């Protein structure tokens, strides 16, 4: 490509690209604004928080506007010359992450973490990580995937160690950065093998070349370079998802980091990593269906399925023994990542394109629900920590007598995480299991059901301690601030949404239109 050609592409492409990129741009502008404003501040104020709230709300608005405007149009979804793709899938995740950003700023406001002094350091990191996660969901170029993963990770390392004087936070961030840097290095090496082998880093082109290469060799003859490349990239993504066996950082980081940051990593980071896994593996596998190379997609689906089953089972079994609430929720997060990997594995292994979109639909739906139940649980942990100064299950005894609304909210989140009808978590889980049934992955379905029963034990254990167990000494109760009350009320109502007419079909319509416009290479 000559320089003139490149300039031509830039000239014609850039205006439209920037419009479609505007939710991310809103975050970029907010970050710069916060950093700029702090130059003129003498004392710490909460100005940074207000700016962060404004930025995330604008970003959410722009993402929703673009989703409504373009979801049915025939605009080419690839922007910036094939670096990013803006399809329904991207739109959905941008809305999800921006909405989550709004909730995060709200949670930070009610728990007063970070303090006014640190707010202008904390929020640029938070928004920067969110920006990186948005890019993770939209990249279709290996270089862009690497940049996006790094952009999401680097601020996360900082956020994990944000409480500088805390020994445990220091340890958590050390573990996170050491393992994270290793995982990203391994991923980059995998990319160098894969991209070099096919002479392109553009994922759809690469997938087509792969299908062509498989077809020309006629069957299950694969280059060891390609296998190594794909597996090493999956190691990097698996680390971000915290899939077993790359999960070991997750409990330590969650326990050491503050509950707010743990909630952020648990929801946003996981959502982005799952989106990346879905985008990467589905794009790579799709042309193979056309080439009738189902042996390879079957093997990839089986690998992912086994990984998902082990992840879910390990997370649920290990969670039972935990006494620290954040650590317990970390294992619960690992287990939920396992559930969400199941439909992706099923879609790839199902040998049929018609089940592709319903499977992705189930993942998107689960993530939307997961945001509300998991953030709610971390929010309650943070609020209780502010009141009683402990995150240990033993100190939760008899909380029903001390703060009934918070205990009820926790009960709703915990039961929703288990998947008890009629809460939102049940519907989300049901849809995942329905996809597993349709795709014929019955063994995965059975493992999923057994896991749901396992998970009931530790979620209910928390509730038993909070509600049934009698405290030895009576301790005083406390009142929630109105803003905290509203935060919990919104999340509880969201978890009760299946009972309300109209809300549920609306969410279904959004995820359906998001997957109906999924950009796949033909």
């Amino acid at each position, binding site marked *: *490509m000559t320089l003139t050609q490149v300039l031509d592409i830039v000239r014609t492409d850039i205006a439209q690209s920037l419009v479609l990129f505007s939710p991310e741009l809103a975050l970029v502008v907010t970050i710069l604004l916060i950093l700029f404003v702090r130059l003129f501040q003498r004392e710490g104020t909460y100005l940074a928080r207000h700016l962060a709230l404004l930025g995330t709300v604008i970003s959410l608005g722009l993402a929703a506007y673009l989703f409504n405007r373009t979801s049915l149009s025939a605009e080419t979804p690839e922007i910036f010359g094939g670096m990013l793709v803006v399809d329904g899938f991207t739109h959905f995740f941008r809305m999800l992450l921006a909405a989550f950003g709004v909730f995060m700023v709200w949670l930070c406001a009610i728990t007063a973490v970070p303090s006014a002094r640190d707010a202008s350091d904390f929020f640029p990191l938070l928004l920067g990580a969110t920006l990186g996660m948005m890019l993770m969901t939209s990249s279709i170029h*290996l*270089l862009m995937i*690497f*940049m996006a993963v*790094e952009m999401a*990770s*680097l601020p996360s*390392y*900082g956020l994990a*160690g944000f409480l*500088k*004087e*805390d*020994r*445990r936070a*220091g*340890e*958590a*961030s*050390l*573990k996170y*950065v*050491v393992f994270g*840097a*290793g995982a*990203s*290095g*391994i991923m*980059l*090496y995998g*990319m*160098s*093998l894969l*991209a*070099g082998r096919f*002479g*392109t*880093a553009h994922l759809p082109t690469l997938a087509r070349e792969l299908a062509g290469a498989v077809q020309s060799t006629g069957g299950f003859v694969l280059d060891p370079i390609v296998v190594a490349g794909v597996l090493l990239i999956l190691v990097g993504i698996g680390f971000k998802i915290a899939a077993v066996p790359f999960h070991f950082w997750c*409990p*330590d980081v969650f*326990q*050491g980091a503050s509950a707010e940051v743990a909630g952020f990593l648990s929801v946003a980071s996981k959502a982005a990593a799952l989106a990346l896994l879905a985008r990467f593996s589905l794009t790579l596998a799709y042309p193979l269906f056309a080439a009738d190379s189902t042996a390879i997609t079957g093997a990839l689906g089986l690998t992912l399925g086994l990984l998902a089953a082990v992840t879910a089972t390990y997370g649920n079994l290990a969670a039972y*023994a*935990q*006494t620290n609430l954040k*650590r317990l929720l970390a294992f619960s997060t690992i287990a939920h990542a396992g559930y969400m990997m199941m439909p992706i594995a099923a879609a790839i292994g199902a040998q049929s394109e018609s089940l592709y979109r319903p499977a992705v639909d189930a993942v998107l739906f689960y993530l939307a629900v997961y945001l509300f139940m998991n953030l709610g649980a971390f929010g309650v942990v943070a609020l209780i920590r502010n009141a009683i100064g402990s995150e240990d299950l033993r100190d939760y005894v008899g909380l029903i007598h001390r703060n009934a609304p918070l205990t009820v909210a926790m009960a709703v989140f915990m039961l929703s995480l288990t998947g008890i009808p009629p809460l939102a978590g049940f519907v989300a889980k049901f849809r995942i299991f329905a996809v597993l049934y349709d795709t014929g992955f019955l063994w995965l379905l059975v493992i999923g059901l057994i896991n749901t029963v396992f998970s009931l034990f530790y979620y209910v254990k928390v509730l038993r301690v909070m509600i049934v167990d009698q405290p030895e000494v009576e301790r005083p109760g406390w009142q929630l601030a109105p803003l905290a009350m509203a935060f919990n009320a919104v999340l509880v109502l969201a978890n009760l949404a299946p009972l309300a007419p109209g809300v549920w079909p609306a969410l279904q319509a959004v995820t359906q239109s998001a997957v109906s416009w999924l950009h796949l290479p033909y």
Partner: protein
Amino acid sequence: MTEAIPLQAVLIVSAAMFVCGALCMATKRNAVGILMGVELVLNASNLNFVAFAQYTPFGLDGQMFALFGIVMPAAEAAIALAIILNFYNNHLTVDVDRANELKL
């Protein structure tokens, strides 16, 4: 001059670098030592990228990849060193085996 060295030779060197880096990450107990292992792995992939850029149609893409592969880990190293320094301030050591307070 480039004909003298086949692509395979460069790939073998980079694979050796990758293995050294991975071993270094797995066995070193000093946090800075682990970071050096990470750098070896990253530079192995950069070597791959420039080699593919030279010998295959991957071309300019590979060189761009290598450039970003140099810049991005520099940012990562900056954060990692800051965190290691903070860990040292709290624990007076950079031995990762001493990072063992977060447990059940």
